[in-house]
C-alpha cells in the first residue's frame, strides 16, 4: 500500500477512488492509529493467552492458595492485589487464580462473543434492510414494524430475563446447560437487539439508491431482483455498513459485559471481563485492584473501538467530522 500511495503524491487529488481517499485519511489520523494499535494489542493479548500460561507456568483456573492471607482468604498477600513477578496483575481473592491470565482469557471470551454477536446482527440487519428497502410496500411495512417492536423492548432487562428461560427451554429439549449453551444463547440475545439499528440504516440507504440511474439502467436491461440487490445495490453500501459495524462493536462489548455482570453471562470458571467485574464487587473495598483491572481493560477497549469507529466514520464521510 505504501508504495502505491507514494506514487500518487503529486497526482491530482481527483484521481483517487473514494475508498482510497478514505484509507488515506484514516492513515493520516493519529487517533485512528493509536486506537487501532490498542485494539490490535488487546486482540494479540487474547490470541496469545495460551502462550502466557506457558510463560507463567499456571492456568487461568489454577488456584494458588499460597498467594492468599491464610487468615483472610479475601486478601491476596502483598500490595495492590498481590501483584508480583509471578502474578503480573495480582491474584483473585478467595482462590488465588492469576488475574493476568484471567484477564487475557477474559479478553478472548468477551471479544469473541461481542464480535460474533456483531457479525450475526450485521448479517441479519443488512439482509432485512436490503429486503425492506428494496421491496417496499407490505414487506417493508411488516419489517419496519418488527424493528419498531423490537426497539420497544427494554433490551438489557429482556436479555437478562430471557436467558434463564431460553436455557430452561433448551434444557427441556435435552440440551445440557453450561457455557456451551450459554454463550450461543448470549450471542443470539445480543444480536436480536442489535440488528434493527443496522437494518434501519441499510434500509434508508437502499431506498435512496433504489431510484438511482445505475439501478434504473440495470433494471431496464432486465436484471433480476437478486442481481439488483446483491450486485448493484449492496456494493454501494459498504461504507455505511462499515461505519455501523465499527460503532456497533463497542456497544456489543459493553452489552455483553453488562449481561455477564448482571449474572446472565459466561459461567465460572470460564473467564470474561464482565464476569471478573461481577466477581470483584464484594472485594472492591478490600482489593480495589481486582475491580480496577477488568474495569479499566473494558474502558480502554471500548474507548479504542469508539475512537476507531469515529475515525472510520470521519474517513468515509468527511463532512460529518468536526
Amino acid at each position: 500500500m505504501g508504495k502505491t500511495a507514494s506514487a500518487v503524491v503529486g497526482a491530482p487529488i481527483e484521481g483517487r477512488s473514494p475508498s482510497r481517499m478514505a484509507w488515506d485519511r484514516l492513515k493520516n489520523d493519529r487517533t485512528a492509529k493509536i486506537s487501532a494499535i490498542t485494539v490490535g494489542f488487546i486482540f494479540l493479548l487474547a490470541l496469545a493467552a495460551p502462550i502466557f500460561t506457558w510463560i507463567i507456568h499456571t492456568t487461568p483456573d489454577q488456584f494458588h492458595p499460597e498467594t492468599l492471607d491464610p487468615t483472610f482468604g479475601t486478601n491476596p498477600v502483598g500490595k495492590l492485589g498481590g501483584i508480583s513477578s509471578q502474578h503480573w496483575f495480582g491474584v483473585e481473592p478467595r482462590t488465588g487464580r492469576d488475574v493476568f491470565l484471567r484477564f487475557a482469557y477474559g479478553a478472548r471470551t468477551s471479544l469473541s462473543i461481542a464480535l460474533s454477536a456483531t457479525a450475526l446482527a450485521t448479517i441479519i440487519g443488512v439482509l432485512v434492510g436490503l429486503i425492506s428497502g428494496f421491496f417496499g410496500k407490505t414487506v417493508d411495512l411488516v419489517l419496519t414494524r418488527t424493528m419498531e417492536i423490537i426497539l420497544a423492548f427494554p433490551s438489557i432487562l429482556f436479555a437478562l430475563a430471557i436467558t434463564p428461560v431460553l436455557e430452561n427451554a433448551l434444557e427441556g429439549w435435552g440440551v445440557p446447560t453450561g457455557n456451551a449453551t450459554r454463550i450461543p444463547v448470549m450471542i443470539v440475545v445480543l444480536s436480536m437487539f442489535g440488528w434493527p439499528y443496522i437494518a434501519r440504516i441499510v434500509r434508508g440507504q437502499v431506498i435512496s439508491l433504489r431510484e438511482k440511474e445505475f439501478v434504473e439502467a440495470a433494471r431496464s436491461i432486465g436484471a433480476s431482483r437478486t442481481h439488483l440487490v446483491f450486485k448493484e445495490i449492496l456494493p454501494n453500501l459498504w461504507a455505511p455498513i462499515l461505519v455501523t459495524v465499527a460503532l456497533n462493536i463497542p456497544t456489543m462489548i459493553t452489552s455483553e459485559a453488562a449481561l455477564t455482570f448482571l449474572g446472565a453471562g459466561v459461567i465460572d470458571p470460564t473467564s470474561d471481563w464482565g464476569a471478573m467485574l461481577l466477581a470483584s464487587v464484594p472485594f472492591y473495598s478490600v482489593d480495589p485492584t481486582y475491580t480496577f483491572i477488568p474495569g479499566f481493560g473494558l474502558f480502554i477497549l471500548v474507548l479504542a473501538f469508539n475512537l476507531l469507529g469515529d475515525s472510520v466514520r470521519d474517513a468515509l464521510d468527511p463532512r460529518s467530522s468536526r
Partner: protein
Amino acid sequence: MLKYTLRRIVSGTLVLGIVSAIVFSIFYILPSDPARLACGKSCTPDLVARIQVALELDQSLPVQYGRFIKGIFVGRTYLANTDAARECGAPCLGYSYQTDQPVTLLLMDRLPATLSIAVGASILWLLIGLSSGILSALRRGTWIDRTSQGFALAAASLQIYFVGLILQFIFVDKLAWLPMPGYTSPFDYPLDWAKQMVLPWVTLAFLLSAIYSRLTRSGMIETMGEDFVRTARAKGLSSRDINIKHVLRAAMTPIVTVFGLDLGSLLGGAVITEYVFNIPGLGKLATEAVTNLDLPVVTGTVLFAAFFIITANIVVDLLYSVLDPKVRLS
C-alpha cells in the same frame, strides 16, 4: 393535532399489545416447566401443583393470554374457590407466589426508588451535558472544547458498574463523605435520601452527560452551519440571541427526542445502576426476580418497562410535533 395524538396513542397501544403477547408467549410457553419457574427457589411440589392450576397451563395459549389481558383491566383471582385464593386487583400483571403478592403491588413498591434515580440523574446529566456541549460548541477548537470533549469521549466509554464501584470506593470507603448508597423515602428522611442518592445520580449523570455533551455540541455545530443562522447574523442579531434563539432552539429538538427515550427506558428500571448501588428499584426487582426465577415478576417488570419505553416514544413524538411546526402542521 388531536387526531395525530389519538393515532399515536392507538398505535402505541397496539405495539404494547404485541410486545405483551410476545413476552407472554416467551415466558409462559417457551420454558419446559413454567410452573416450576414461577414457583422459584423455595418451592414445594405442592406449590408447583397449585401454580400449575393458577397459571391455567392446561388452557390453550390464547385463552391464557386473554385472561391475562382481562386481568390487567378488571383484575383477577388466582386459585379462586380454594383456601389459597389470591386476589389480584386491576391492573393485575400476575401474581408472585414467591413473595405472595400481586406483581402490580411489587412494581408500585419499587417505582419510587427508580423514579428517584431517574429524575435526579436526568436533571443532573441534562445540566452537565447541555452546558458542556454548548460551551464546547461555542468555544470550538479551544482547550475548553478539547478537554470537555475528551472527557465526554472517555466517559461515554466507561461502564456504570466500573465507575460506580470506583466512586463508591473513594467517597464511601476512603473519604467517608457519603453513606452507602441505598434508598430511603424522601418524605420520611429527605436528607438521607439525597445523600444516598448522590452516587447513583452522579455516576449515571457522569456517563450519560457525556452522550448529551457530544450530541449538543455536534447539533449546535451542525446548526451553526445552517443558512438560517447566517441569515440571523446578516440581520445583525447579537451572538447571544443567535446562539440561544436560533442555534440552540433548532439543535434542541433531537436532544429532546433522545432525552425522552433515555428517560423512558430508565423509568423501566435502571438495571445496572440499581444493581451496583443496591437500590430497591424496578431494575433490582427484575434482577432479583430473574435470579429467583420468579416468572410472573419477570414478565411484569419487562412489560412495565416496555410500557414506559412506548409511552416515552409517544410523548416524544407529540413533543416533537410541538417543537417542530413542520410536523405539527402537516
